[in-house]
């Protein structure tokens, strides 16, 4: 079995925890976010013949001004940057966090998750911006914690991507 540490990072109230909640049955309560700053959950999946155990470190939401706790990122196989499609500044925050992570941890596999796909008509993040990011090689995933759409796919994408990274 392969164990992988996956971090969820993103601005405050972009729906990271809701996405995780959608995906796993949690053991720890939400208050860990405000106390320790991280909540850890687990998901066992099978990628082909390979059993994988995801340890999902759901980091407390960051705003522009509070620094990321880089120690929580240590040893991560990758991370999901989560942004709220309906709030453009959460994308800015996510990209800012990405820079912080790259500075402290070096390049790690990551994907940008645009949440709240169910409210796509209210999105502030415009398609041209999304296209631009994709052109720059950023892996973009969409999902909705509310409907559950794309949630499983985003975690499994991450897992398989990480496995490929390990193999190479």
């Amino acid at each position: 079995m392969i164990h992988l540490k996956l971090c969820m990072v993103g601005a405050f109230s972009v729906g990271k925890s809701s996405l995780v909640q959608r995906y796993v049955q949690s053991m720890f309560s939400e208050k860990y976010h405000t106390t320790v700053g991280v909540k850890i959950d687990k998901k066992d999946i099978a990628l082909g013949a390979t059993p994988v155990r995801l340890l999902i470190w759901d980091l407390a939401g960051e705003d522009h001004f509070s620094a990321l706790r880089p120690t929580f990122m240590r040893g991560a196989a990758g991370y999901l940057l989560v942004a709220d499609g309906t709030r453009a500044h959460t994308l800015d925050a996510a990209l800012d966090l990405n820079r912080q992570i790259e500075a402290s941890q070096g390049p790690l596999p990551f994907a940008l998750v645009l949440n709240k796909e169910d409210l796509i008509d209210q999105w502030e993040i415009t398609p041209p911006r999304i296209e631009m990011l994709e052109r720059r090689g950023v892996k973009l995933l969409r999902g909705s914690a509310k409907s559950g759409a794309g949630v499983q796919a985003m975690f499994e994408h991450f897992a398989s991507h990480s496995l490929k990274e390990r193999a190479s």
Partner: protein
Amino acid sequence: MSLADARVKSDPANQTTSEWQRLRSLLLGAEQASLHALAAKVGNRDNLARSVASVLAEATAIRAGQDDGITRVLAPIINDGLQQSVRGNPQPVVDALYPIMGPAIRRSIAEALADMMQAFNHAVEQSLSPRALKWRIDAWRTGQPYAQVVLLNTLVYRVEQVFLIHRETGLLLGHAQAEHAVVQDPDMVSGMLTAIRDFVGDSFHVSQEDGVEAIRLGGLSVQVRVGPKAILAAVVRGNASESLRARLSETLERIHHSHAVALSRFDGDMAPFANVARDLEPCLLAQARERRRSPWRAYVGIALVVAGSAWWLIERHESAAEWSAILTQLEHEPGFVVVETGRDGAHIVRGMRDPLARDPRNVIGAERARAYEIVWDLKPYLSMEPPLVLARARLLLKPPDGVTLRLAGSTLRASGIAPEAWLREARRRAPLIAGIVTFDDGAVDVKNREALNRARQTLTEATLYFEPASDAVSDSQLAKLDTVVPSLIVLRDAAEAAQMAYSVDIVGRADAPGSSEFNLRLSQSRAEAVRRYLLAHGAPAKLLHARGIGAIDAVGPQANEADDGQRRVNFEVIAASAEAADPAP
């Protein structure tokens, strides 16, 4: 011919030089080439280094075999190098030493822990004891499972879970849990534990090595040991012992050693750690609570001190009390007057003592007298206290057995049966005794008084009559003597018993006719005749004295007439005290 040759030919000086050159190369061509090669080697830094490098190891080995020059040269260099390395980045040195350092230090630590399950079973077996009942109540009250309460009460500590956590990722590499332990998802716990360590490390700016070593919450603690690549965390209920901490460190070191490669290349693949749980199981220690031994030594010590102090106090108090008791005793003892007491090393008692009083040592008891080493300073005096007066009377009167003396005021009362002789003497002496004025012998019965009196009476009443001028005892008179002999014997025996000396005078008489000389002789003969008869019939000789007194009773108007009544023999009983009458009986 080449152009050059032509030029040489055209210049004679040049021609000579080149010829020399040619000659030289013809003669020394090979040597010249090797000289050039050597010069290139020595002259060029790189070449020279390469040449030396090729023989450096061999040269070092040869020199090292000859002397310790190389060691001496290298030692300070290595020292400096090591110091610089540690100063710059200690981690590689720490990593290199880590697997061997700990075991070397701790190998000598002995481990002996009681078997947890045995203690547990023991506790469960005793589930009907009052203690167990209390635990059941505790379990019911606190809502904890009974087994948990038993464990908490019977174990000093118990390791419930052990986590081996990859330090970098916080991923769980191995996990072991004790039987019956309540366990949450170890993977997530492992992650959270790492997160908490990180959180504390970040929040309080401590390095990872110095990070959280223990998390404690009530009776539960998480003991954390941090290695270069992995962390060992033990969830301990109760108070972890030093030996457990040593065991954790040792285990972590062993795993670092045995999984060195897997740890340093860890990428999430758990295969190399499939069996690591087995290495963790020895950490699932439990230590049974030792029966709380009463600190009996302390108790005994305290008891001894208390008892000692109490004994000393009591002794002191008793000593003072005893001394005053001794004095009181002496003051109450008849025949003693305590005038003064003091201490001059020994106890001193000054005063007066009647010689008849008891020995003071007997008064207070020989034991105490010895213990107090009393010095007696006692002058003699005559005590008028009744016991002493009585004692004095007893000493001086020597009352025979059967006589009791009592004192009533200044009167000495005697009672009982006493020999007559003693009674007489007592009457004489008693009033002379200090403290006695009168002697009352009304209650004293003289011994054998009746027998004596009867014998006396018989004797005094017996009268034998004689014919004129004859000393022969007629048969009719002899018959009277039959009662006399037994009376004499009674008198003798009674006298002996009463310590009296009696004598019986056989007194012969005559009537007036005849000369007085004749009559005296006649009366003597008559008395002796009776004595002879009595002796012949068993009368005690000692008692009898024959004496004739003639016709001394012949007085009055018919004094010279014959008188039958005067020709007779009588018995006179004379009593005297034994001493007076017969000093050597």
